[in-house]
């Protein structure tokens, strides 16, 4: 057999015992030593299951029916055990927090060695070395609460590297990181690959971000089958991505809008390799033809913060002199790195905390004296994970909960619940148990349960986190519908696509201060804002620069306007 093959799937199928259909269906795939592979696919495509098969969680932790053959380093995985496999395949999971089992970074890195009975003195040496590989050697004593998401991910990486595994598997490494940290993570993985020559497998649905650095092959999976196995340039030029619910890079979309036929000889796999010579004229013509839109918000103010400052301990300000004025029916995003004060801001708005200085006005009225319960009738908060809110087994009861707690007569409740369910497209399910719903539907239930209270303003914390393109579009289009009912929407987010496409206005926080209150297209093209807030420059901006179009922010805005008109049609 070929020495260079490290992983080989042959007619491999897997079906969970709890599922009616196989999740992986006749997979044939070879991965060679030292390759860097990206596996993409929408939610439920089977890409995570494929990862579980590699690291041994299947069949050793998740049981099911396994057919065909999967060999790693020439041996069948089913004849191994999870511990032997973990010596060959090191896995970095997506939840940077929950996978951190140690109380300090050093301890977490040492975890695998502890389980191998490595003597303490030797262990400390090896931990130092592994930590140095990911530049964490000075933070070995830090607890998970002191580390950022990116740092926790590096700790996890050091924790698997310490065993000198051949294969590194990253399961959605970008899911919990802000844009700049995600970009850094892809860079670290790339440098590691270049230095160590290890085989690297990245599972991700955010294709453009994962392609920030070079990838040898992209495997596209859908419905448990391999749809494509191509280099990035070929894949990006093919129609397969959009057909299978993966968002193509934004710059590719822009090229297509401009009528350019994207072919693999333009090397469109990465923005850094893209050749735009042939597309320059078409792009300029397209861009110049987009009429400039003037948007004025003539509507009255609905929510206003005036010189608001806040601190938890009275010493360190978490929010410092925040001023903004949101008008009725706006859709605004609040962005900034972790710890910038975004969630504290929403806590102040909901009344969970009280501002130390300054004032918050709802339609011109200071709401300082309003209780949490009273504010909820004006401002509704939807938390990131629907499981943080759902506390009733039945959909109808969950949506009615807020009304019942307010002792509203039952006859009125029925009507309001029906209305909220209707808006959220949940009427067909109203008598269902919540456990039968998908994640996106659960999200809708939580939104419905807040809408039942008829708030004028809706705050959503990362509404699309962890969602693939189809679910993302579904949730966001649904929010647009709600927005049309004159509900003002405030989104707290890391997602730059979301910002660009759905919120005309972005409020950017950094270190408790407001560093920008502008259009999303301006925020994502201003290098000062990008750097301070840990954002990432949008590839549309890079495209405009590459093709010599002046005024990148206007180009980006043009793209958004064009796309919106396309959708409205």
């Amino acid at each position, binding site marked *: 057999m070929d020495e260079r093959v490290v992983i080989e799937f042959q007619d491999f199928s897997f079906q969970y015992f709890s599922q009616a259909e196989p999740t992986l269906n006749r997979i044939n795939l070879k991965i060679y030593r030292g390759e860097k592979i990206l596996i993409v696919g929408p939610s439920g495509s089977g890409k995570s299951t494929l990862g579980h098969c590699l690291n041994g969680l299947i069949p050793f932790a998740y049981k099911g029916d396994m057919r065909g053959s999967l060999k790693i380093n020439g041996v069948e995985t089913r004849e191994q055990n999870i511990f032997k496999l973990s010596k060959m395949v090191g896995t970095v999971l997506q939840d940077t927090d929950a996978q951190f089992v140690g109380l300090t970074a050093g301890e977490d890195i040492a975890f695998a060695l502890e389980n191998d009975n490595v003597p303490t003195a030797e262990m400390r040496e090896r931990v130092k070395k592994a930590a140095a590989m990911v530049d964490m050697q000075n933070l070995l004593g830090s607890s998970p609460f002191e580390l950022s998401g990116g740092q926790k991910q590096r700790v996890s990486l050091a924790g698997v590297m310490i065993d000198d595994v051949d294969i590194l598997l990253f399961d959605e490494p970008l899911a919990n990181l802000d844009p700049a940290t995600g970009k850094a993570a892809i860079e670290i993985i790339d440098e590691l690959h270049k230095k160590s020559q290890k085989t690297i497998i990245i599972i991700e649905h955010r294709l453009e971000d994962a392609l920030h650095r070079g990838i040898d092959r992209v495997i596209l999976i859908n419905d448990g089958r391999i749809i494509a196995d191509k280099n990035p340039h070929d894949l990006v030029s093919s129609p397969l991505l959009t057909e299978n619910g993966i968002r193509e890079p934004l710059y590719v979309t822009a090229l297509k809008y401009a009528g350019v036929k994207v072919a693999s000889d333009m090397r469109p796999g990465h923005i850094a390799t893209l050749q735009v010579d042939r597309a320059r004229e078409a792009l300029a013509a397209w861009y110049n033809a987009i009429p400039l839109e003037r948007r004025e918000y003539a509507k009255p103010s609905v929510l206003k913060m005036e010189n608001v400052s806040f601190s938890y301990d009275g010493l360190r300000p978490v929010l410092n002199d925040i001023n903004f004025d949101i008008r009725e029916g706006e859709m605004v995003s609040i962005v900034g790195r972790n710890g910038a004060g975004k969630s504290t801001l929403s806590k102040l708005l909901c009344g969970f905390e009280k501002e130390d200085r300054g004032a918050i006005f709802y339609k011109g009225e200071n709401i300082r004296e309003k209780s949490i319960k009273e504010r909820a009738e004006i401002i509704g908060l939807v938390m990131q994970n629907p499981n943080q809110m*759902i506390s009733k087994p039945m959909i109808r009861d969950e949506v009615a909960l807020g009304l019942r707690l307010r002792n509203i007569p039952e006859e009125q409740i029925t009507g309001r619940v029906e209305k909220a369910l209707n808006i959220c497209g949940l009427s067909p399910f109203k008598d269902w148990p919540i456990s039968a719903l998908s994640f996106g539907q659960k999200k809708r239930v939580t939104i419905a349960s807040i809408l039942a209270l008829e708030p004028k303003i809706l705050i959503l914390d990362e509404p699309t986190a962890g969602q693939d393109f189809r679910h993302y579009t579904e949730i966001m289009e649904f929010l647009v519908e709600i927005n049309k009912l004159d509900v003002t929407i405030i989104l707290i987010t890391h997602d730059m696509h979301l910002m660009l496409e759905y919120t005309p206005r972005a409020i950017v926080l950094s270190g408790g201060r407001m560093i920008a209150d502008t259009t999303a297209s301006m925020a994502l093209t201003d290098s000062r804002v990008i750097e301070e807030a840990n954002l990432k420059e949008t590839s549309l901006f890079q495209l405009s620069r590459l093709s010599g179009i002046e005024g990148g922010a206007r180009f980006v805005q043009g793209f958004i306007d064009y796309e919106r008109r396309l959708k409205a049609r």
Partner: protein
Amino acid sequence: MNAKMKLFSYNTADTPVHRLSGLTKLICFLLLTFAVMFSYDIRVIFAVMIFSVAILRLSQIRFSQIRAMIVYVLVFVVANAIISFFFSPEEGVKIYGSRHNIVNLYGGYKLTWEQIFYQITKFFKYFSVIPFGIIFLLTTNPSEFASSLNRIGVNYKAAFAVALTLRYFPDMQREYHDISQAQQARGLELSHKAKFADRFKNSLLILIPLIFLSLERVETISNAMDLRGFSKNDTRTWYTSRKFARADYVALAVSALITIGTVYVSVFVNHGRFYNPFV
């Protein structure tokens, strides 16, 4: 982080007490607890109490950190004293073999000097153990605590479970806090305005989401642990375990001496566990 979060959490500082190995602290804690529990001699108990308070100062533990704990214990000890008086008001008389009445109470209860002396002794007994418990909890890194448990013979899986609980406890607290706020916004009343039965029912509205979130988390954690070889072998080593230094031997010796001292006083001075000032 508010002060509540710090309630049971390990306090990082660099003091001679922090530098001791977790195993040393565990053994010292057990020895000293035994010593105080064994002796009913108030002189010995006072001596140990002064020692324990001195160590408490040495470990730089602030009163604000332990106030809540002290209050809980105080309530418990006082309740205990009252209840034990009503159940066996003659305990002191029985132990010391004499009777000095102070006053006759209702229902045939008599307050005696013996009973008062006995209960005061008991009160200080409890109160001299508490500083040791606090010192141990607040100066021992939880993983070091787990590794010490393992080294005195507790199964490592059970020992690790202790460390893991302490690792995720603050996460759970934060989660609880967030859920509770979100549910309050939906109209949940947690304050004293609500009736007790309602408050109980309402707290379920927070606990149910918390349980489901924890189950999600448990799956991730157990996968993460499996993937890095937890429970592969019958034994494991610990990154946090420390080699014994001179200070460890000194601490062990001091604790052992105190223990032997109390036993000596009981056997050769008092000829029993009780010190009897009434003869």
